């Protein structure tokens, strides 16, 4: 009986959550599926990369596995609901948000933080103007 270890250098998100469940949380598939309120076959499909989780399930996986929501969203290419909401709230946003995101595609973390601060100031300024 050989106890093998796989040597995949870049594990998929399915592999990552499976390993975390088995090696860190030490839970079986059925037990974890019960905790996530899904069928064991559904969790199997997610771990094997055949399905991606819904918005609500992604949040439950994040909480149950202790993996950041952002990491899961990036791995499953699932943007936060707010991105969809803002990008489609009106005609102007539908045009400008994709344009803005294309421009900002290659920003690093520090530049994103600067941008967020500027957006916060702009939003605060707008609110003050509106109050006057």
């Amino acid at each position, binding site marked *: 009986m050989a106890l093998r270890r796989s040597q995949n250098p870049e594990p998929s998100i399915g592999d990552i959550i499976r390993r975390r469940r088995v090696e860190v949380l030490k839970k079986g598939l059925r037990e974890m599926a019960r905790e996530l309120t899904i069928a*064991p076959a559904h969790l199997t499909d997610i771990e094997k990369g055949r399905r991606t989780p819904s918005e609500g399930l992604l949040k439950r996986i994040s909480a149950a596995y202790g993996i950041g929501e952002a990491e899961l969203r990036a791995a499953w290419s699932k943007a936060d609901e707010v991105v969809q909401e803002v990008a489609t709230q009106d005609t102007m946003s539908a045009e400008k948000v994709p344009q803005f995101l294309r421009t900002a595609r290659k920003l690093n973390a520090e530049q994103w933080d600067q941008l967020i601060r500027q957006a916060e100031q702009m939003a605060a300024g707008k609110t003050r103007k509106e109050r006057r």
Partner: protein
Amino acid sequence: MSVKLPTRVFDPSYGRRVIERRAWSCLQRCRKSLGLDQIPLPIPVEQWIESPLEFHFGFADLSYLGDGVLGATFIREREILIHEGVTDHEGRCRFTCAHELGHMLLHSSVRTEFHETNDLGPGSNDVVEREADRFAAAFLMPLPLVEAEIVKVFDDCRMDRVQCTWELMQTTRESEWMWRKLLLPVLTRRFGVSLSTAINRCNDIEPRIPSPRPLLPAEFVEALLHRSARGDELEAIRLRNGVPQYADLFTEQAS
């Protein structure tokens, strides 16, 4: 293989000893690999298939493999799949997992793919499936631990181990009472198996002492799955001096 089963009272029936040792050896390797002092009960078969045994494992709709398929083993892919329909049946699900593990460990040179269906079981004519069933029973209910549980039941109830073991082999109402009311409820709960698995397992066990009878009388094997024909008689069994006795006998013996 030089594995010895650390039993003192019972042995597996002859012809099942090789599989018994393979299952025990697998359990011991898992225990050591996980750094555990003891084998936990119920044995976490689903988790151990994944780690430390490192087989791919999952639940899926296996109806595409045929009607009534409960589990499948794919040797080359090192993958065990369990049909999604059995996930709610704890005993059935655990047994199917252990059965498929048996194929993976015992039968890699026989075929590359195995499917377990509802039709199979202890009465199956397929030798390979019967071996996987025996492995599953030995893996989920390892003989040394079954022995320890039976002894513990006797000790907890302050029962005479020797007399009660002897009584178990008889077809008396006292024996039926011990099987129905004491042992089988404890064994099914502690080992996480169905009643039929526990009965079949006990049917595979022989006392170490030379005995003309098996531990579980053949007359009980089928009968224990159903309501007792003795009805209220079993309710009148009480322990007396560490041995179960029918209540009517109390007054008889006293006089």
